[in-house]
């Protein structure tokens, strides 16, 4: 493996049209090949914006995003993304949903079939391949969405709060499965979440972002060996640490806003 990182984000920032403040201040970080990185931060701090820029769905105002050594100018090229609401195509069966990206890339039919079956096996959805999304539970839909990304054999897997719409139990199960899948397939992952324990459990590195406007305020390296256990005391301790830090950030933020309001009132 080359020592070139999977992802290199340099001073990427974004202000949306018709918006007064920046969604994301210049942000830099790297993701090594096969590394699992989480982005955690309060709502509206620009996590989805950052992920969208990495996915190539959104262009940064300035700064650069490099994937596998090449500047990102659009979607594709070894990157796949999983959205919070699964975003499955409702008119296609699970099988055809997972097959979609392969069809877009003109992969021959026989190979498509094999890869789709593999991907469905990875997320344990073989038995519902012919069902339509509306016939699935929320957890199954999210698995299908993960399979749809995995089938592309991405070197970089982007996940935007993939489990946040699920109940606690399903969520725990899927976290375990994701850990297993990641160990088996070893993509670099950028994982967005609000859930600190989830971030700590899954990641090699966690970046804490602050809001209004967003930027990385602290980075945690987690070198607990895998497979990990969610109840590991070391993880709980980490979570505490991050929580304190986040609280401080939110307080800071409230204070800063209050000050700004006072200034503008003068």
């Amino acid at each position, binding site marked *: 493996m080359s020592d070139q990182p999977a992802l290199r984000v340099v001073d990427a920032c974004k202000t949306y049209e018709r918006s007064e403040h920046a969604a994301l201040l210049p942000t830099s970080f790297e993701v090594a090949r096969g590394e699992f990185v989480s982005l955690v931060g309060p709502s509206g701090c620009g996590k989805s914006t950052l992920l969208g820029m990495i*996915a190539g769905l959104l262009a940064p105002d300035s700064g650069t995003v490099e994937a596998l050594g090449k500047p990102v100018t659009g979607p594709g090229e070894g990157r796949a993304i999983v*959205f919070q609401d699964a*975003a499955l195509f*409702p*008119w*296609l069966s699970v099988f055809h949903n997972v097959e*979609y990206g392969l069809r*877009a890339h003109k992969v021959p039919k026989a190979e498509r079939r094999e890869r789709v079956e593999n991907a469905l096996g990875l997320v344990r959805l073989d038995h519902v391949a012919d069902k*339509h999304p*509306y016939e699935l539970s929320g957890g199954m839909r999210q698995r299908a969405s993960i399979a749809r990304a995995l089938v592309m054999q991405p070197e970089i897997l982007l996940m935007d709060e993939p489990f946040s719409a699920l109940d606690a139990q399903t969520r725990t199960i899927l976290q375990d499965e994701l850990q297993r899948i990641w160990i088996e397939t070893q993509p670099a992952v950028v994982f967005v979440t609000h859930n600190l324990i989830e971030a700590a459990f899954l990641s090699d590195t966690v970046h804490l972002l602050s809001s209004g406007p967003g930027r990385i305020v602290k980075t945690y390296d987690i070198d607990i060996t895998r497979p990990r256990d969610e109840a590991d005391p070391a993880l709980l301790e980490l979570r505490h640490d991050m929580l304190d830090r986040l609280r401080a950030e939110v307080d800071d933020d409230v204070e800063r806003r209050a000050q700004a309001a006072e200034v503008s009132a003068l």
Partner: protein
Amino acid sequence: MSTTAGKDRGTAATVSRGIGTAMLALLRKSWFVIALLLLWWIVTAAGWVDPYKLPSPGDVLGTLGTLFTERALLTDLGATLLRLVEGWAIGVVAGVVLGLATGRSRFLEEGIRPVIAGLQAVPTIAFLPLAILWFGFNGTAVLAIVAFGTFKPMALATYGAMHQISPTLLMAGEALGAKGFFMQRTLIFPAIVPSLVTGLKMGWSFAWRALMAAEIVVTGAAGLGGVLELGREIGAIDVVMAVILVILVVGIVTEQLFFTRLERWVNRRWGLVGAR
């Protein structure tokens, strides 16, 4: 889903019981229609109205039979339906294609959409004199009116539907490598199908209304509208009413039975109802 499964599994007894309750339900829902028919029958049988103004239900039914056997009303019905399907199909294809194009290009959208929206404010039948001048006093003019009447709502429905596609679905497709025509064919088009089906149904009822109006004016070719107008000319009110009955049945059968079912099927298949 549950109804078909139920039918499959049902024994003869449950099926006949099912039919019995269905009949009862139908009776309960159509009490007003039955009352109207009864009133019609009483009024005519008692001789309270001039039969030249309002013939009895029996007479109308009799005339209907004669029309089918002697005046080959079936030919007229066939001609009308063929024109309806042809005009509607032309209008649908043209409307969907233009709708897709305007939904994809800002340039086309800004130029074309206001024009179609404006035209939609003019009842289609107002264009009939124009169509007659262009195509002659014949079936082609009627066909053009039907196609045009379908085209407008269809283009607007397609265009509107394209703006309602979930942005996340579009992003998902884009991220998976879909673009250009592949994207149109496999994502944008299927995504708008539920709205299109609603558009198809609406287009059909617009087409049906425009067709009848046009046929009454352009009576040269075979068609229900022509028979209707003929009935008026010779003062045969029973013919007029019999044809209205046929028009009513065609409208109900196609709109309610066919399109409503299609709509329900698509909505289920697309997970818009019964999901979760």
